């Protein structure tokens, strides 16, 4: 698996470059995940707003709801949930697509034509994963904070100045960069695991289904494990 990553990373820098393939994958992983990211983000923000308000109001600290929602989303929930959503929606598709290409001998066909399948198939998918996760995460953060605003300000009557002022005062560039570094590394993790599991698929349709299950489970676990390590380093 590490050798696979090593070979793919080497091919990042080697020609031929196929921008069209990369754009197709950015469209598939990024744009087509947008709706479900927005939906997840708005409800995550709303539930954080609701829970946070009732918890903080016990201590008379409702004014801190804005930064509580924003920091939770920007540092943790944004990157992790974006990673989960992309794994479920795009990662599983990447694995099954690569698996089908493998079992239908289309990867072998590329090799017989003298086309490196890692360069042609895997590199654009991994580049797209690495590029799109931070962008999706940024969108998740903005929409999630807006979801918190809907509940805190529109539903529970907190002033919008308190909500956004608290965010401005308490969220630093460091918090944002922690979230973006996490999402960048999750993008690499998801696309690496999902393409690898598909690429080495064996034994027909059952093999593809096992590869998809294994890719999704491993991606989820690795996102959480890696999240812990990055958090402990960058606290």
């Amino acid at each position, binding site marked *: 698996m590490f050798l696979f990553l090593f070979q793919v990373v080497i091919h990042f820098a080697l020609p031929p470059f196929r921008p069209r393939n990369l754009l197709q994958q950015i469209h598939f992983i990024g744009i087509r995940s947008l709706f479900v990211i927005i939906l997840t983000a708005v409800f995550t923000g709303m539930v954080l707003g609701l829970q946070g308000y009732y918890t903080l109001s016990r201590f008379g600290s409702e004014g801190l709801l804005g930064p509580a929602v924003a920091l939770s989303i920007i540092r943790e929930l944004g990157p992790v949930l974006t990673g989960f959503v992309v794994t479920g929606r795009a990662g599983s598709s990447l694995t099954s697509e690569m698996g089908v290409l493998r079992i*239908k001998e*289309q990867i*072998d*066909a590329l090799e*017989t*034509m003298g086309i490196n399948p890692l360069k*042609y198939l895997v590199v654009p998918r991994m580049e797209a994963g690495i590029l799109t996760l931070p962008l999706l995460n940024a969108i998740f953060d903005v929409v999630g904070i807006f979801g918190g605003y809907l509940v805190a300000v529109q539903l529970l009557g907190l002033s919008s100045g308190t909500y956004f002022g608290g965010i401005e005062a308490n969220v630093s560039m460091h918090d944002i960069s922690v979230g973006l570094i996490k999402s960048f590394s999750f993008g690499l993790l998801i696309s690496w695991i999902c393409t690898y599991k598909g690429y080495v698929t064996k034994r027909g349709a059952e093999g593809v289904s096992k590869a998809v299950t294994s890719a999704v489970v491993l991606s989820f676990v690795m996102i959480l494990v890696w999240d812990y390590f990055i958090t402990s380093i960058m606290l």
Partner: protein
Amino acid sequence: MPEPTEHPNGSTTQPSALGPIGDILVAAGVVDKERVHDLLKEHGGGRVETELVGERLVEQGVIERKDLLTTLHEAFRKEIEAYQDAPDSTPILRFAGIKKTLDNRNVLDGVDLEIPANKITAIIGVSGGGKTVTLKHMIGLMKPDAGEVYVGDQALGELPNRKLNDIRKRFSMLFQGGALFDSMNVFDNVAFPLREKTKLSEEKIRKRVKQNLARVNLGAMGGKFPDELSGGMMKRVALARAMVTRPEIILLDEPTAGLDPIIEHSIHHLICDTFLRSRYTMVVISHAVPAIFNFCHHVVVLHQGKVLEAGPSLDIVNSDNPVIRQFINGELHGPIKVI
């Protein structure tokens, strides 16, 4: 005058003025030489036009398709007989003591074989006997555990990827399931190797793809996607894709598997027809016994990981070897234990 054929290894072949099919039809007295000349003049000549002479004559009602197929098959039968009398072709592919173990099973157990150049060779044998593995070794998709594969004089053994890719330019392969790219339509599937591996202009690519689709009688199917095609059509598209780069060697992995007898027969004719037009070296894995003996010069019988017998197809079909006899006759009882 049609332009010479350029092969990936730099060699060229000068075609005849009437083209290979035109020559056969004129020699057989099916059509006049002048009629073929007029036809070529009408279509502007060119190498591919000469190769499409047969189709054009059928389209214009000059000859019947049945006559075209019969004449070509008769010409090929004469070739098979001539090869049996003098099997003199030099080998283009050679296996020396190839061994391969997969899942703790010796799939190839010291295979020595030679594939003659510019001939059709069929590899036959029981299922699971290592035929596809043999084919994959020829093009370097699999590496042997022991032994060496030679393409011409070049050993594939420790070749770096770049050099292996240069060798692969001499090959094309038709996979068992076609291996067409699902996300592309028929036209783009056939155009794919040209777009990726050549610097031809899009106009030239379009022309060559159209000509190759016409060769396999799928000229009108360019816009269809693989899942809209029948099994036979997929194999024909895959053959068009294999021919489009004008390789020296075409490997065909069970081109007739899962097809009805009529389509199977038509694919055999197409292979034979392709050979007569272009004289590629073709290696065919087939279970279509005994039909395949009418469509190949040379046969290699693989059994229990070894070459049991190899030689001109007419010699193999008359072999006394009990394994070969049982295989050809499809008998349940014999040295091959099935049940």
